[in-house]
């Protein structure tokens, strides 16, 4: 761990101003950042501790949605009765992630910004374009079992590891930020993350010092919520594939569908072509098979992660079946 300066600003505005300086990182729960700092994968010169700021509330918004403070711990968010009732997919995604101890510390804002679990990103002896731009990608041509099959580039094939963000993507969350100049904005989650392209070290659209203050959820969308996470052990492992689904059926046809995917891409993945295909149709196994094919039509395996393509397909079909209350059959 490189020696660093530490500040504890009194307000969000002060934090954003402090954050603008090069080499600064915000720290809240620290569940990912501290590990990365110990390994010197990340070596910020300055930490701005926002953990004591007043951003820990979940409030009703005027439009009937919720505003979740950036510092709301994952455990509290998952247990909130409004979340459990109206945004069950989010509660389930949160509880599928990490461990109880980590969820007690990890925050809503921090979870959105957690870094990839790529083995090579974590090992400073290995080249990694995300850690050290221009050094190369050791995962390509190496062991890439947990890596992306969608949205990756020849510079980086790392995945985003969050479960929460996948549910947020399906829920069309908006990320409310405060910039160092005092301006605030709301970024739809669809625009929040960047694909790696040639700049895998740039992961979001946040500008230097821009502080996540809250995450806003639109009014409840109803329907049946499912979060299915497929992983290498029963608990405490990152998703190989995960699917967040909200499906509402009216008069025998799918009236609304929102689907997002984890473990497949450098960001919480969404493919609106699938939703368009489903809406207006009667639920049927053949339809789900077509939808699942669409999900992976542009997928590219890199060797050890080839299995994710059939796995994603099968998982999506099963989740659609479950969400549509179809009986599961092989």
């Amino acid at each position, binding site marked *: 761990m490189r020696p660093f300066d530490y500040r504890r600003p009194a307000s969000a505005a002060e934090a954003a101003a402090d954050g603008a300086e090069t080499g600064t990182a915000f720290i809240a729960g620290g569940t990912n950042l501290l590990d990365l700092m110990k390994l010197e994968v990340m070596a910020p010169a300055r930490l701005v501790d926002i953990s004591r700021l007043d951003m820990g509330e979940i409030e009703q918004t005027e439009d009937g949605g919720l505003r979740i403070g950036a510092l709301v711990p994952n455990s509290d968010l998952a247990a909130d009765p409004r979340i459990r009732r109206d945004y069950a997919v989010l509660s389930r995604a949160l509880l599928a992630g990490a461990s109880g101890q980590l969820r007690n510390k990890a925050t809503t804002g921090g979870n959105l910004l957690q870094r990839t679990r790529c083995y090579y990103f974590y090992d400073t002896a290995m080249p990694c374009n995300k850690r050290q731009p221009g050094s190369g990608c050791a995962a390509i041509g*190496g062991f890439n079992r947990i890596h992306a099959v969608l949205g990756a580039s020849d510079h980086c094939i790392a995945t985003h590891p969050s479960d929460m963000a996948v549910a947020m993507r399906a829920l069309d969350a908006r990320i409310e930020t405060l910039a160092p100049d005092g301006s605030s904005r709301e970024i739809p989650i669809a625009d929040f993350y960047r694909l790696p392209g040639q700049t895998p070290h740039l992961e979001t659209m946040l500008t230097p010092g821009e502080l996540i203050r809250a995450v806003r959820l639109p009014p409840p969308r109803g329907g049946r919520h499912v979060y299915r996470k497929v992983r290498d052990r029963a608990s405490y492992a990152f998703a190989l594939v995960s699917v967040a689904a909200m499906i509402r059926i009216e008069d025998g046809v799918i009236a609304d569908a929102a689907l997002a995917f984890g473990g497949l891409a450098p960001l919480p993945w969404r493919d609106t072509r699938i939703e368009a295909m489903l809406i207006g149709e009667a639920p049927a196994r053949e339809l789900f098979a077509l939808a699942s094919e669409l999900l992976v039509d542009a997928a590219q395996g890199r060797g050890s992660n080839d299995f994710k393509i059939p796995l994603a397909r099968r998982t999506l079909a099963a989740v659609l079946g479950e969400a549509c209350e179809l009986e599961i059959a092989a």
Partner: protein
Amino acid sequence: MSSEFVMDAPDPRNLLDHMAQDLTGAPLDRPEGPLKVSGRATYAHEYRLGNCAYGVLVRATIAKGTLTALGDEAVRGLPGILGVFSDDRFLRNPAQGTADKAPVQGAQTIAYLGQPVALVVADSFEQARHAAQSLALRYAPDADGVFDPESDAANIERPDAKQRDQGDFDRAFADAHATVDSTYTTPAQNSAAMEPHASVAAWDGDRLTLWGGYQMLKYNRNELADSLGIDAENVRILAPYVGGGFGSKLGISPEAVAAAIAAREIGRPVKVAMSRQQVFEATMRRSETRQRVRLAADAQGRLTGIAHEYRVSNLPDESFSEPVGQATHFLYGGENRRIVHEIARVNRTCAGSMRAPGEAVGMLALENAMDELAEQLGIDPIELRKRNLPERHPEQDIPYSSRMLAQCLDEGARRFGWDKRSTKPGTTRDGEWLIGMGVSSAARKNITSQAEARVTLTTDGDAVVETDMTDIGTGTYAVLGQIAGDMLGLPRDRVRVMLGDTDLPPGPGSGGSWGASSSGSAVLEACAVLRRQLADRLGLVADGLVLRDGDIILDNRRIPLRDAMGAGPLEAVGIFKPGKTSQDYAQAAYGAFFAEVGVSSITGEVRVRRMLGTFAAGRILNAKTARSQCIGGMTFGIGAALTEELVHDLRDGHIVNHDLAEYHLPVNLDVPQIEVHFLEERDDQACPLQSKGIGELGISGAGAAITNAIAHATGARIRTYPATLDKLLAVME
């Protein structure tokens, strides 16, 4: 006085069954348990010495070559830095178990990526770690590293002593009614003990004291002394508590030697703990294996031939190679036999002993192959195994000492409900889950080792047991106290057990499942001497001495033991030595594993739904700690079958998943309720306690019951361990 017992003939005295205290075998708690669960048991890294400095090891970041410069110019000016050490005496890798001398040394010659090449020492741990990460090591790399044991460039050795060719296997195979010819692979693994390797070194003149997490102190002392080029008399190692070893702490390892070198140099105690990544990279791994098993059988499923040909790997110049065929030698009959043992020399982290070296991986393949044969012949897998239990050791033609394998299979089947297993694979479902049941034999070679223990009867009539034997979470404190309590008629709380200090009589160390039997037999011998001394003092015959609850029972009187101690304390040293019975009898502990699994027909995920083990391991010394050992072993079996795989990057051999996030040990949710049952057995050929080793029995075959259950659930057999969902998807697609 001291007394030596050599196991040259069966010991029918059955001493423990004639004692009055009834402690041995009872499910007693560990006396040190409350200390451990309340954080008061002091582990190596927790010793607080005045003026202690902190050292952090630095890894080589190339796979093969020479270290030409430390690149420490920028580091020396950092705050708190006391020195950067890189020394010819540094260890390339830990010593192998019972090596008793230094392993390959030298920081300059790099043989694998992750090899410790330097130690940075500073006033604080954080300063040392940052400096260690800031060194600009310079190398002259070699281009001829070999990273894949299957590579044509790998140097392959076939040591004569490890091969077996008996009868005419090829002919038996050609003439057989039924054959199996299957190749299985198992990945490299890491013990992943909870306590990382750590040492604190302090010098007092020429005398070195080292607090370290080690399993075999009498060997470790010699290994450390030899590594440093000093007299072993000047080395003391203390390891009263060890947070798990599983083989990874058998031999002295790099942090200990580095700490000792630095401590001497700077004149302060130095504390070095490995990071979890370093534990994965710079201690011991279990070798990956490729195993071809061929079985030849008649129509009744009786084996006529068995061939087990395998390849394992290790660094150059390492004596150890995973003895994959160990159980194959003795478990099943068949007069035509072939074992081929190959070692590929590779530039990967050193391979060494991990819980049940040999059986843990060899039985995965052998027990899968037996299942394949049973399926082919339409014979129940339990029946097939029972038909193939030979009368005598099939290669050495000696009798078995005790072997209740058939009874374990039958008893386990009854308790597990084996009769409810459908005979046709792939036919039982529970929603999306395909359900299957599997069985496997358990077998682990029984080994004993020379052991010494001192037992003192104090003037208070209490007992003190002393040996440098370790308790690595196994229950040594509990068990040795029970044996001494039984022999001396003392309740458990009047026996104090002192372990883990090389100033005490040399024990056998914890490894090879020999600790309890060997050190327990030494305690037994010492106590037998004390009983004679006591009897002499009282003018009685030792055989007739009845001791219970701290009293001497004489006719109808109870005399407090304390009253007999007026003439001073009594002390005896018991020495136990393995003898002819280890050659005259094929000794092993046996059992049977049963597993029920569910396999998701959608994702290929496997969940173990229940698991049961029946075991016969001679006298059970403590029913609770023995049960814990078996549960732990079976949990290792779940990991081996389903989740654990140390991945080497084939481009440079480095371990890709060197942390607990990506090296997947089974977590609580992966481990179902595990039932353990012991069958009553005594083995008077094994040792005077009539006990056999149990620490490794619970893993030896466990994973095969799970993979056999997967085959039963799905009708498809995964021969590439672990059975992760991608492999099941591939057969289900």
